[in-house]
């Protein structure tokens, strides 16, 4: 594992860590770490610093849906063009090209079920190259970004052992 890989694996889990502490953990100079992060951002490897929120525990209403989309790829552009048409909607949180029974997988976040229904029927299905869609609503989130929601951390060990 290179320093770069190790740095990425640390900040993937903790983006709030500062340069000084990162430098200590990696056994590098603060300046080296600063430069590496700048490079990673310029290279488009670090694309943002987000916070993982369990919205279910807030009073904010949110409905999340996974939408499978079958499309006709377009000559010269493959799936990229249609994917762009979909991901440009701000309510679309992610879009993946998928192998298997369908082509694109989009996740959609809205306040209500109705808004999702409207998006699918008015905007998504009406796109020229979209052949069909299947919408799945998320009922409960158990694990996201490698983090288990609602996990209670408890140290089960004896307090002192040789």
């Amino acid at each position, binding site marked *: 594992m290179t320093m770069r890989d190790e740095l990425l694996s640390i900040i993937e889990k903790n983006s709030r860590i500062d340069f000084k502490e990162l430098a200590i953990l990696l056994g590098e100079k603060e300046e080296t770490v600063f430069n590496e992060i700048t490079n990673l951002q310029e290279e488009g490897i670090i694309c943002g610093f987000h916070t993982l929120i369990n919205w279910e525990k807030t009073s904010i209403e949110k409905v999340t849906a996974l939408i499978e989309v079958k499309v006709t790829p377009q000559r010269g552009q493959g799936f990229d063009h249609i994917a762009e048409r979909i991901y440009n909607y701000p309510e679309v949180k992610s879009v993946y090209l998928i192998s298997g029974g369908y082509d694109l997988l989009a996740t959609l976040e809205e306040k209500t079920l109705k808004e999702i229904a409207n998006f699918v029927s008015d905007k998504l299905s009406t796109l020229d190259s979209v052949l069909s869609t299947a919408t799945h609503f998320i009922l409960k989130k158990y694990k996201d970004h490698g983090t288990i929601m609602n996990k209670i951390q408890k140290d089960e060990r004896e307090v*002192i052992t040789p």
Partner: protein
Amino acid sequence: MRQFLSEKVINLKPSGIRKFFDIVSEMKEAISLGVGEPDFDTPWHIRDEGIYSLERGKTFYTSNAGLKPLREEISNYLKRTQDLVYNPDNEIVVTVGGSEAIDIALRAVINPGDEVIIPQPSYVSYEPCAILADAKPVIINLKAENEFRLKPDELTSAITPKTKVLILPYPNNPTGAIMEENDLEEIAKIIIENDLLVLSDEIYSALTYKGKHISIAQIKGMQERTILINGFSKAYAMTGWRLGYACGPKEIISQMTKIHQFAIMCAPTTSQYAAVEALKKGDNDVEMMRKAYNQRRRFLLNAFKEMKLDCFEPYGAFYVFPCIKEFNMTSEEFATKLLMEEKVAVVPGTAFGDCGEGYLRISYAYSLENLKIAISRISNFVERLRKQA
């Protein structure tokens, strides 16, 4: 009524850790840095394999020496990590943790009065196991200025005509010290000259931070006079599974297996199936944990440097062993006061031998968040002590 107890057992010193444990376990809000086991859960695929073995009804004894596939994987593992060749048929025995391996190794080789050299500070069970095997323990007090490595002159001066075994506990609990190739070569020379046997406890072999671990068995002429002990507890975070192993010359391993057979029958079957999976597919898990330990190690060393607390750089296990001699307190006084005033539990160095006086064992088998809180409390404590002085 008669006194039923064995004098040998009555005279064994109780573990120095026990007393401290009793105080700490009363204090609910204390942060402990006193644990000698990984904070990670056993990787899921290993646990899953244990569960799966139960579902398939693998609930019977295994052969005394351990499952054949497990012995084969142990053999593969030692070949790929340390270039050591052990025959799974007769040079490996699977034990109930490294602890059992230490016990049966000593019982297999000791005649009453044989001397066993034990470098300290070191794990708490060597001395009692030696005594229970009717050996005479001979302690070498390792020195901080040598980074707690065993030096040739220290070994030479401990050898008598009765010496039979040297226990070599590296990477070391509690100091975090390691022995590098040149250190081992010097020791090996003396071992061969004096026709001694080495009991090499390498339970922390996967956790080193300055190059790969080297076993004394890798030094020329040493494999035939080494009992290598290792296990799954530290590398794979499997302490509760109680699984270890010993490898060595077949004459010794067969006698150890005899004791193991009569005393234990075999190591836990579920654990053995899980361990096969660990050795086959666990390399990445070990590396992930090692990286995490190394980050914490750097964090602690830096924190002690900022506190100006004297601490040599340990390159193994998951302990640091800072020196507290500047405060004119015993380790136990310091640890007790730290616990009472700042609610941080560390283990006094004396729990691992008299020469641990003036030192503390601090474990970094804790999350960074935990370590940060503990370090800020220790820092407050140290500052206060210095002001009072």
